[in-house]
């Protein structure tokens, strides 16, 4: 199981890469492993505004479905257009080719609530 050190994590098993006021969001290696073979990904539209905690997408395997939540508030500035056609990228490369959306932060305060890698690893083990 892969847990990159430079990322932040949520209890909903999303990862967040922070670069100035732009954050990139995806689901963790642990999450994709739990779901199994992912067959479908639904993403928001560029320009959508999300509040922290809003559902922004859906990830489906053959027999399970999982909502994906915005860990921070902001505007969607880019989505991974390749993902709906290649949902297996979420399984094969969750932190790279499997990224889901990029958001422009409206409030950086929420970042403080995210877990660092050690905290997330501990969270997963407890789960």
């Amino acid at each position, binding site marked *: 199981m892969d847990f990159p050190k430079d990322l932040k994590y949520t209890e909903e098993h999303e990862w967040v890469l922070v670069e100035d006021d732009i954050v990139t969001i995806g689901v963790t290696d642990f999450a994709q492993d739990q779901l199994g*073979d992912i*067959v*479908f990904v639904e993403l928001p539209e560029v320009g959508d505004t999300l509040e922290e905690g809003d559902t922004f997408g859906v990830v489906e*395997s*053959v027999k399970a479905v999982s909502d994906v939540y915005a860990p921070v508030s902001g505007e969607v500035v880019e989505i991974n257009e390749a993902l709906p056609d290649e*949902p*297996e990228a979420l399984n094969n490369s969750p932190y790279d080719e499997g990224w889901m959306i990029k958001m422009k932060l409206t409030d950086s305060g929420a970042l403080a609530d995210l877990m660092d890698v050690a905290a997330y690893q501990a969270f997963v083990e407890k789960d």
Partner: protein
Amino acid sequence: MMNTESRGLVLDENLLFEQSQPGRVGYSLTGLDVPSATPDSRLVREEITDFPELSEVDVVRHYTRLSTWNYGVDSGFYPLGSCTMKYNPKINEAVARLPGFAHIHPQTPEALNQGALELMYNLQQDLGEISGFPAITLQPAAGAQGEFAGMLMIRAWHEANGQKRHKVIIPDTAHGTNPASSALCGYDVITVASDGILSKEAVAAVMDDDVAALMVTNPNTLGLFEADIREICELVHQHGGLVYSDGANLNAMMGISRPGDIGIDVMHFNLHKTFSTPHGGGGPGSGPVGVVDKLIPFLPVPYVVREDNSYKLEYNCPQTIGRLKSFYGHFGILVRAYSYILSMGGEGLKRASELAVLNANYIRARLEGEYDLPNKQRSLHEVVFSEDALQNDCHTLDVAKRLIDYGYHPPTIYFPLVVHGALMIEPTETESKQTLDEFCDALLAIAEESKNNPELLKQAPVRAKVQRLDETAAARKPKLRWERV
């Protein structure tokens, strides 16, 4: 000893469209005895691209061959839990095809179809007696539509009393249709955990004046009778709520316990489960609903009433929830179910329930020990094992697939969700001790194989038309119709 060596003739069969030959026909139409006429050519379509062209023989062979790749109750034992796959009597099929039932038009004046209306009326009465409800609607097309109808009536009743309630309580063992039907009525679903059976305390913890109803399945999907059901119903009623019962498992208690007597307000029947009508590869089903007195004004229209020795369809119900579909229900299925009730009689129905419970308990007794049984309470018509006793990383899915190699339809798997790797077996009353013994021998042999030769499970089935299919590929790049390449 089981014979796993024999296998049927398995031939490939192309799709209808792939067999099509231009100019081939499978019909003979009576010639036109009136002048020919054609509509405005701007409205007329081109010929239907790639529609099949086949002879009658082509079509007969095609479907005959397809049928040989199926497994039905007539092929062998079908212990699909929660689905009550009992034998489908042949007299039912014969009577449903009588011209006086099969070829009557629903818009025929009621006076000319008194036999059909009488049959429906009698069936309403009989289902009422079996369940303890004073009124029955036969209109719902299937169990899920029955649930929808029942929950609509509950909401209509609350609103007629000036109450806007928003919540429905559903135990975690419920069929997925329960929450889905509640959502269709605009309700929020509150899930409660149950420890085998639902406790009064668990319901009390979430019960308040915003709860419209509790939806239970009784016996529940673990095959357990909800022993506290009377007290739970009282509790819900005290808070002004109603209790809906999913009747999927009525086959365990005909003539033994009546939902209408113990506090349930609404219940649907599955005629295709309890009353022996065929499942037909998924339908058509039929899901009549029984209600207590106070819900009668809200029944869907129309329903059948008797007036002065004749029968009519009643439409004059100002508070009705409306209609759920065209016409009066799945009449052809109602005929089959009524034929079954006539053939069984009251005592026969009770005996059916007794033997269904005996059969399930016999399987439990033979397999407990080799297979893990999470809930040890006295179970009724079905028994649910978990996968926890399986060895060498074998799972429930593997056991199910291996059963196919032994010549059985697998049980229901991975449901209810509260049991880890659930293997849910419902034998029904129409199976003999010999059949059950052979089936149990097969499951015990598979448990043994999981210890000594797990690959046999992992590779299974090897004796079916196809091996395990790639469901991931099917869902990633859906191909849902044939198209010419």
